[in-house]
C-alpha cells in the first residue's frame, strides 16, 4: 500500500479515537442518567460546561490543574443533585415530552447565564500533559501524551460505571429505581435519594468530558463548547443502546473514527449527515441499540 495512504489511515484512526472517546463519555453520562432515572437529559452537555466554569474559576487564584479538576467534579455533583431536587423531581410521572422540553429549556438558560457571567470568548484551559504530538521517523505522529491521557481517562470511567451497575448493590438499586420506582419503594429502596445520586454521578462523568474538551487549544471553554459533542454523544448513545455503558463508549469511539475518515476523504460538511445515516440504519436494524440485549417476554 502507498506509504502516504497508510500514514493517512493510521492518523485518521488515532485522531478519530481521540475524538471518539469524548463522544463516548457524553454517551456514557446519558446512559448513566437514563439507567438511573429513566430520563433523556438534553442539558447533559450544558450542566458539565457550567460546572467546568465554576471549578476553573479557581485558576485565577493560582490553584493547579488537579485541584481545579476536583473542584469541577464537586461543582458537577452539586449541580446534578440540585437540578434533580429542584427541577427534575417535579417531572417524574409526567408525560415523556415534559422532561425533554424542560431540559432543552434548562440547556438554553445555562448557556445564557454562563455567557452573561464569563462571556462567550473561548478560554484556553491548561493541559496536565503535553499536547505536542510524538514524532515517528521524524514526522509528527497522531498521538500526544494528552491524547493518551484522554483515552485512558475514558476507559477508566467506562469500566468504573460498568462495574458500578453490574457488580454493586448501589448500581442494582439505581437501575431498579429507574425501571420500577414503586416496586423498589415496596422493597425498602430509598428511591428519592438514588434518583438524586444518579443525576450527580451523570453530571460528574459529563464534567470529565468538558474538562478534556476545554483543554483543546483551538476550541477552549465556551458556553456552547459541549453542543456539538453532545449531538454526537447522543447519536452514540442511541446506536450503542441507552442501557449499555460499554455500548455507549464503543459506539462513541467508532463514530469518532468514521467522522475522521469522512472529514479526511469526503467533506467535513458530510460528517453529521453520515452520522445521522448510521443512526437511522442501526435503529432500523436494532431499535434498542446495537449493544443492548433484547429480552423476550413470554405471554
Amino acid at each position, binding site marked *: 500500500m502507498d506509504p502516504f495512504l497508510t500514514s493517512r489511515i493510521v492518523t485518521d484512526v488515532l485522531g478519530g479515537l481521540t475524538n471518539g472517546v469524548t463522544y463516548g463519555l457524553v454517551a456514557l453520562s446519558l446512559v448513566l442518567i437514563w439507567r438511573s432515572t429513566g430520563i433523556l437529559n438534553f442539558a447533559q452537555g450544558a450542566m458539565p460546561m457550567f460546572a467546568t466554569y465554576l471549578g476553573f474559576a479557581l485558576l485565577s487564584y493560582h490553584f493547579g490543574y488537579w485541584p481545579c479538576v476536583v473542584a469541577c467534579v464537586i461543582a458537577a455533583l452539586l449541580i446534578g443533585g440540585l437540578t434533580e431536587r429542584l427541577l427534575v423531581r417535579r417531572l417524574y410521572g409526567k408525560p415523556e415530552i415534559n422532561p425533554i422540553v424542560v431540559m432543552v429549556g434548562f440547556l438554553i438558560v445555562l448557556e445564557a447565564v454562563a455567557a452573561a457571567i464569563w462571556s462567550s470568548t473561548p478560554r484556553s484551559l491548561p493541559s496536565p500533559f503535553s499536547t505536542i504530538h510524538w514524532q515517528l521517523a521524524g514526522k509528527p505522529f497522531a498521538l500526544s501524551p494528552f491524547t493518551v491521557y484522554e483515552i485512558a481517562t475514558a476507559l477508566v470511567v467506562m469500566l468504573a460505571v460498568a462495574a458500578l451497575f453490574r457488580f454493586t448493590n448501589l448500581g442494582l438499586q439505581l437501575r431498579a429505581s429507574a425501571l420500577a420506582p414503586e416496586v423498589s419503594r415496596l*422493597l425498602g*429502596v430509598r428511591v428519592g435519594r438514588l434518583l438524586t445520586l444518579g443525576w450527580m454521578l451523570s453530571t460528574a462523568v459529563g464534567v470529565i468530558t468538558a474538562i478534556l474538551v476545554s483543554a483543546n487549544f483551538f476550541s477552549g471553554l465556551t458556553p456552547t463548547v459541549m453542543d456539538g459533542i453532545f449531538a454526537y454523544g447522543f447519536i452514540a448513545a442511541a446506536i450503542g443502546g441507552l442501557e449499555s455503558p460499554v455500548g455507549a463508549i464503543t459506539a462513541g469511539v467508532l463514530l469518532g473514527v468514521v467522522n475522521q475518515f469522512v472529514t479526511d476523504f469526503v467533506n467535513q460538511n458530510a460528517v453529521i449527515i453520515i452520522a445521522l445515516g448510521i443512526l437511522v440504519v442501526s435503529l432500523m436494524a436494532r431499535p434498542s441499540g446495537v449493544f443492548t440485549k433484547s429480552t423476550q417476554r413470554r405471554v
Partner: protein
Amino acid sequence: MITVEDLSVSFGAVQALRHVSFAAQTGKITAVLGANGAGKTTLLRTISGLKEPKNGSIRFDERDLVGERTEDIARMGIGHVPEGRGVIGEFTVEENLRLGAMTAKVNLQRGLDEQYTMFPVLGERRKQHAAKLSGGERQMLAMARALIAKPTVLLLDEPSLGLAPLVTAQLMHTVQDLCETSDLTVILVEQNATSALRIAHRAVVLHVGKIVANDEAAVVAADENLRQYYLGLVE
C-alpha cells in the same frame, strides 16, 4: 399484629374505602375478599404507604403507619407483593432476589438458598431474565423476593390472578406452610374466594369500600348470603 381502624380513602370524589376496621392477627392468614372495585387493592396500598388515607389509623407494633414513607414501612418488616407481581423483567431472577434482600440486613447467600429450596424452579432459572418466566414462576419470584427480607407481615395482592388452578393451589399451600412454620402475618387479597377461604383463619369481605363481614374464615365460607351476594360462589 396489624390493626386498621376507621380507615377511609378517596380518589377525588370517589370513596374507595369507608370506615374500614379490622385486625390481622400475628401468625394468621387474614383473607380480604370482594368483587372488582371493592377496595381490596386500595387497602393494601394504603397499609404500604402508597396511598394516603383521608382518615383513620393503621397500627403495627404500637406505631401508626399513616404518614410513614413506603420504603420505611418496608424496612419495618412489612413485605408487599403487588397485583401483577411487580417483578423487574429486565433483571435476572437472582438480581430480583438480591434487591429484595438488600435493605433487610439478612445473609444474602443463606436467603437465596432458602428461597431456592422453597421454589426450586427459581434456582434453576437464577440467571434468566424475569421477563422470560411464566406467570406462575413470576408469582413465585415476587413472593420469594418479599420473603427473602424475612418480613413479619406479608401483604399478598391477588396472587392467583391469571394462574392455572394447580399453580394457585401450590402457591396457597406455600403461604399456609409459611404461616404454620413461622410467626408470619399474612393479609391475602383475593378474588378467588374458594382458594383463599381454604387456607385463611379469618376473612374480611369488602363491598364498594365497606366491610360487610369480618369473621372466622369457616363462618364466612358457610354463610350462604355472603357466598351468593358478595363472593359470587353459587352452588
